[in-house]
């Protein structure tokens, strides 16, 4: 791929590119050249014509086109956030918002186009499906290319499909009544952008009492340079059901900006349980401006497990709205910011129901000039009598070129709540490194082991294969960052 001279973000020319080039991320940083004849793409930029074109391509129902156009209007009215990492390098006039492989979504790997299949083979997705998953969706650029669900899970009445198909099937009304209701386009500028150009993503519905004991997974691969990915994940877990959903994301590295502005909306019913795990490993030219939100009914539980390793800039704060009495939210996350990365991550908890509880446990690691910001808010409304909230955030700085900030906020509006918050920032203890070296471990290995141990609260919550992947990512960052 030739470097674009007029690229909106040129990491090589501003001095960071050469350093980035030193990072060997062969596992994720491979490219499948996209031939024009194999892909359909809209023009760069964001116009009403492009939005209408996407809508037409996707055969949207009328209400969806209206939502897209209304979102575009809101996008134009809203300002870029003034409080987070700079996103000056993101030029929407240069982003291609829709790139579709020519070929239909398939339920068989053999029918997926060869180049795309190769990409997912390298990422180990088919193997993971065979060994550890109840269902898989694989998105390449703007569209899903593969979707499959195990028969025994399907037999429970669980629906796991691409959102576009669901929009025209028996669940159309359910989608219409939930789509962008939890994250309205007015929420912020990039939610509005998502509303205008969303494409791809998954729809999951678990009927009352369904128990999916092994995880479902969606894998998102953004291959096209200068493109945006705007997938929408909508999950509705009905009363008493239990689901674990995993998403993974990666992209090859280019010298121009890519954009990810996905949206995740999770509806957790009465006494239902949903665990949503993410291993995010976008390439380091990615602007990851993603929005994730869950709402829990009475007795419902949402658990977020999040590993953020990639992206040039991230804004990511999964939100749990604890609406029902006795509902519960947990967020466990690790963020690793290396060279050229400015990752602003955290969580939000909103307590509305009585006797709700939440727990946030995060770890941030930064090195080689990376910037990591932990940002959170815990809101306890007046109605949330008996609420309990606990926040723990730890940060580890591996050198003095990097920066680590913790910016937690609390807004407590009842005297009948218990809230605790603790944060620590520090370095790797010399004594610990010395101790390990005295037992024959090299300094580099000792430091990597300590960092892995620091991130253990997250990795131990993941299925083994994903924990191993996360530990590999940490090792990779420690070795090459």
């Amino acid at each position, binding site marked *: 791929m030739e470097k674009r001279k007029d690229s909106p973000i040129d990491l090589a020319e501003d001095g960071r590119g050469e350093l980035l080039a030193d990072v060997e991320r062969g596992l994720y940083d491979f490219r499948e050249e996209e031939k024009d004849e194999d892909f359909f793409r809209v023009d760069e930029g964001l116009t009403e014509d492009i939005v209408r074109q996407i809508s037409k391509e996707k055969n949207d129902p009328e209400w969806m086109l209206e939502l897209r156009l209304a979102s575009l209007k809101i996008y134009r009215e809203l300002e870029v956030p*003034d409080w987070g990492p700079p996103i000056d390098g993101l030029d929407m006039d240069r982003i291609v918002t829709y790139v579709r492989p020519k070929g239909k979504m398939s339920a068989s790997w053999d029918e997926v186009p060869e180049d795309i299949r190769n990409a997912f083979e390298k990422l180990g997705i088919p193997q993971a499906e065979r060994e550890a998953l109840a269902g898989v969706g694989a998105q390449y650029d703007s569209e899903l290319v593969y979707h499959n669900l195990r028969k025994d899970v399907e037999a429970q009445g669980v629906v796991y499909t691409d959102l576009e198909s669901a929009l025209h099937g028996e669940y159309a009304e359910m989608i219409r009544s939930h789509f962008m209701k939890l994250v309205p386009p007015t929420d912020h500028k990039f939610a509005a952008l998502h509303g205008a150009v969303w494409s791809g993503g998954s729809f999951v519905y678990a009927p009352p009492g369904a128990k999916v004991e092994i995880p479902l997974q969606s894998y998102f691969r953004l291959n096209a340079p200068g493109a945006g990915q705007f997938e929408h994940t909508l999950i509705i877990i009905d009363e008493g059901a239990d689901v674990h959903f995993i998403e993974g994301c990666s992209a090859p590295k280019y010298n121009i900006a890519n954009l990810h502005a996905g949206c995740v909306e999770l509806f957790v019913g009465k006494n239902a349980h949903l665990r949503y795990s993410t291993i995010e490993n976008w390439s380091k030219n990615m602007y990851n401006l993603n929005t994730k939100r869950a709402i829990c009914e009475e007795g419902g539980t949402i658990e977020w497990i999040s590993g953020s390793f990639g992206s040039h800039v991230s804004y990511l704060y999964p939100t749990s709205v604890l609406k029902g009495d006795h509902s519960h939210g947990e967020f466990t996350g690790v963020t690793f910011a290396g060279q050229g990365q400015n990752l602003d991550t955290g969580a939000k908890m909103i307590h509305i129901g009585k006797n709700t509880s939440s727990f946030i446990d995060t770890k941030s690691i930064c090195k080689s000039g990376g910037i990591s910001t932990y940002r959170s808010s815990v809101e306890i409304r007046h109605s949330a009598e008996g609420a309990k909230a606990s926040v723990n955030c730890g940060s580890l700085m591996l050198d003095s070129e990097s920066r680590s900030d*913790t910016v937690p*906020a*609390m807004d407590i509006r009842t005297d009948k709540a218990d809230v605790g918050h603790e*944060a*620590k*920032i520090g370095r790797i203890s010399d004594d610990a490194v010395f101790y390990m070296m005295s037992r024959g471990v090299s300094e580099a290995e000792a430091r990597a082991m300590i960092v892995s141990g620091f991130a253990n609260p997250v990795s131990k919550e993941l299925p083994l294969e994903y924990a191993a992947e996360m530990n590999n990512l940490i090792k990779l960052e420690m070795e090459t960052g």
Partner: protein
Amino acid sequence: MEREYKVNPLPVLTWNRLDLNVAKMKTDAAFSAEDFCREVTLPEGMSVRTLPDAAALEEWVAAHGGKPAQEEVIACKYPMVAGQSFPTGMGEEADRLFDEADAPVKLYELKEGCRPEAPVRLDYLYPDAAASAGRILIHLGKYSELTLIQYFKAEKEAANIVAGTSTCVYLEEGAKLHLVKLQMLPKQSVFLDDSGARLERDAQLEVTQLELGAGTVYLGALYDHWGDRSSLNSRLGYICAKDGFIDHNHVDTYRGKKNEGVMRFHGVLLENAHKVSRETLDFRRGCTGSEGDEEENMLVLGEDAIDRANPMILGEEEDMNGRHAVTIGKLSPDMLFYMQSRGINALTAQQLMVRASVNRVSQHIPDRELQEAADRYVDRIFCEREDCDAPCAD
């Protein structure tokens, strides 16, 4: 005419919807430069003179080490103190308020090596309807030591006062200052207290601050560890009573090596009180070996109380340790039951807990008379409550 001042800025911005990035302080008070500070006899080695205006303050700062280099504004960091000659917690718009009042700066200086034993007490006694803006600068020479008490009070209990005070502190190498602030203004008053401190090598600053009165309170403090091995030990206690509002911003900035800072906040919110707190440990690149510890303990005794907080740690240096913790609690049913089983009613139980919280700070006031005055003030807050049936002792 009503004016708005954006004060108490967060050093790093966060979500605007939380309304925590800055406090919008509105006032129509016509501030005068009269500070209503009573005459005081200064100990040997200590003097006072006046710097007439902001320009004179800037000149003085330039002659004493200058101001910090222009803060690098990255990722919305340090947005509102860069323009100050002496950075303070309330930020540059508070300077504007004092400048508009033409408030001169009273410069208290203690000579190198002087260590007066008795505290210096500055009593501010405000008449009814006062709108005061006063500034002081405390400069301690090398290896000098001082305890300075600022006591803010009204001439009469029914007074309606708007009082603004700015306190800048410059501690030279090895100097030690215990700065004590006790505010007991009538509840209908507004109080603004802006502070900034610069600590050179081996300097030690202890701050004991108790805010008991005034219905509306804005506090800002910015401590700046310039030299190596300096230390801060700060404790703030406050009661925010019915209809009350308190907004405070405390920033402890570490620049030199091996500095230490401890900040403790003990707050009580009664009935429908509203509190906003911002507490920041800011470790700048090069502050190797520095350690900061900040803790907020809130006691919330009102079902309509609002408690908003943003405790932050900013780290640009690997070799440091920063910790902050927040606990927000209430009078638990078990504790209440225990007390009631021993004949203590609910209101008295609350009063005991509030006194315990206040005592964690008041015990460090090195003036018995003021300690007792603080205790009486707490008792009076409870006596004035509608649900109190005991006679006021005062």
